[in-house]
């Protein structure tokens, strides 16, 4: 079976600048979820921009569902939640925003409305369909941006920091939504507990290369590896029990 997303020897970086990530050979199976971990500036967002077709790769190949993707080509099969997902909501009302993508895909009439209704329902936003997007809460905005992606029926989702700045309830709702979605996903996040819950596989990138690729439990619990690359073992994998103020002090 073809991989949902396949990259070979991929180097990414902003045009005119040095590569931030090189030699990436990534195979994402249909329905698989991968967590992408790395310090700020490791190239996670640049990788997403390249896979999404916003910028051309500096080297290497990208294939989607077995079909090679020409450089800087935006594919309908890939949906991207940008790091500043609020900027993905640019239409006056939520329903109009969700309608934007499928309408550009040529959908009209009942089929279009059915797609919008379904995407809103999937993200539990049906009751907010006519609300101006700037009146939504942070968590609603994040789910609204995802509804906009789902309405285009992508096969692969690239989610950049989906849980950033969300309160606990919104984060939980978002995680429930992502867990229910059948699409193959790459989730870039510093929220390691969320990745542990959602992604069986973790890719750790740092210093321009992939530093680890393996089962989430193994990669995220490797304290030495995590520390070497500016990360911490997520709280849920640390020894249980209350942490004393002394222990916190000793960590620093």
């Amino acid at each position, binding site marked *: 079976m073809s991989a949902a997303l396949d990259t070979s020897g991929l180097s990414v970086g902003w045009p005119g600048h040095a590569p931030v990530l090189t030699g990436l050979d990534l195979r994402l199976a249909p329905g698989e979820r991968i967590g992408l971990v790395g310090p700020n500036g490791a190239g996670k967002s640049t990788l997403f*921009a390249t896979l*999404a077709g*916003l910028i051309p790769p500096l080297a290497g190949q990208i294939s989607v569902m077995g079909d090679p993707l020409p450089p800087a080509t*935006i594919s*309908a099969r890939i*949906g*991207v939640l*940008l790091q*500043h997902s609020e*900027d*993905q909501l*640019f*239409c*006056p009302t939520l329903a109009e925003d969700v309608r*934007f*993508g499928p*309408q*550009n*895909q*040529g959908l*009209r009439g009942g089929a279009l409305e059915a797609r919008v209704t379904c995407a809103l329902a999937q993200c539990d936003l049906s009751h907010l369909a006519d609300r101006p997007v*700037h009146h939504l809460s942070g968590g609603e905005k994040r789910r609204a941006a995802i509804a*906009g992606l789902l309405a*285009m029926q992508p096969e692969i989702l690239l989610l950049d920091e989906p849980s950033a700045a969300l309160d606990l309830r919104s984060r939980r709702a978002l995680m429930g939504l992502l867990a229910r979605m059948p699409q193959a996903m790459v989730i870039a996040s510093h929220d390691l507990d969320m990745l542990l819950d959602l992604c069986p596989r973790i890719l750790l990138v740092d210093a321009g290369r992939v530093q680890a690729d393996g089962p989430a439990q193994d990669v995220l619990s490797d304290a030495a590896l995590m520390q070497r690359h500016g990360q911490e073992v997520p709280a849920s994998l640390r020894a249980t029990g209350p942490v004393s103020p002394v222990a916190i002090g000793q960590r620093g």
Partner: protein
Amino acid sequence: MAEAAPRLPDCPRTRLLVALILAFAFASVRQITSLPLLAAFALAALVASGQPLAVLARLRAPAMLALAIALALALFSGSDTLWQAGPLHLRSDGVAAGALVALRLLAIVTLTLVLLGSLPPHKLAEALRSLGLPAILFDLVMLTLRYIDEMRARLARAEAARRLRGGGAGWRALPERAAVFATALIHGQHRADRVWAAMRLRHYGAARPATPPFGLHDLFWIGAALALAAALVWLDRAT
């Protein structure tokens, strides 16, 4: 429950078209004898709005402008003096011209407020788009409407932060204010880049929705507006 008969067209596109047809007809009135008709139209529009007091409140500024124009024309235009007090000459042809201009202006503004004033700005932009406004202009209008409040809020936050950190007031703070404004502009530019990327990712411009045809109800309103406009122009030319 039976719905009350609508006193105004529902569709923003029809409202815009009706407003344009009648506004052009009002603007073409040349005879002072047609002014009562214009006043009657404006009054009917006020009643049809269902909120005459609210519309009247919004008419205050245009009414002041109309009064100023009428006074200026009455005092400084024409030659046939009706009344004189010192250097002030009230001229009959000036009064007629002033009344014509002021009443036409007020009638057009009243009609526009009634038909379009209650529409959300984005609905008005959509109506303009359906009447042939180029897509790129329409999108610019929509994005401006979408982000102008957010830009204003961002600017206000940056200004508050400047003051909280001891920024000055008055003209001496002009360089600081300029810096705040420039920073807001740069943030706006970055945000515009991100929005553009998000639009491209959702296939912006790949297919444009077709404008739906007018319904019977809309055609009735457009026909009625055309008939009224034609009657007004004919009566005006006949007198």
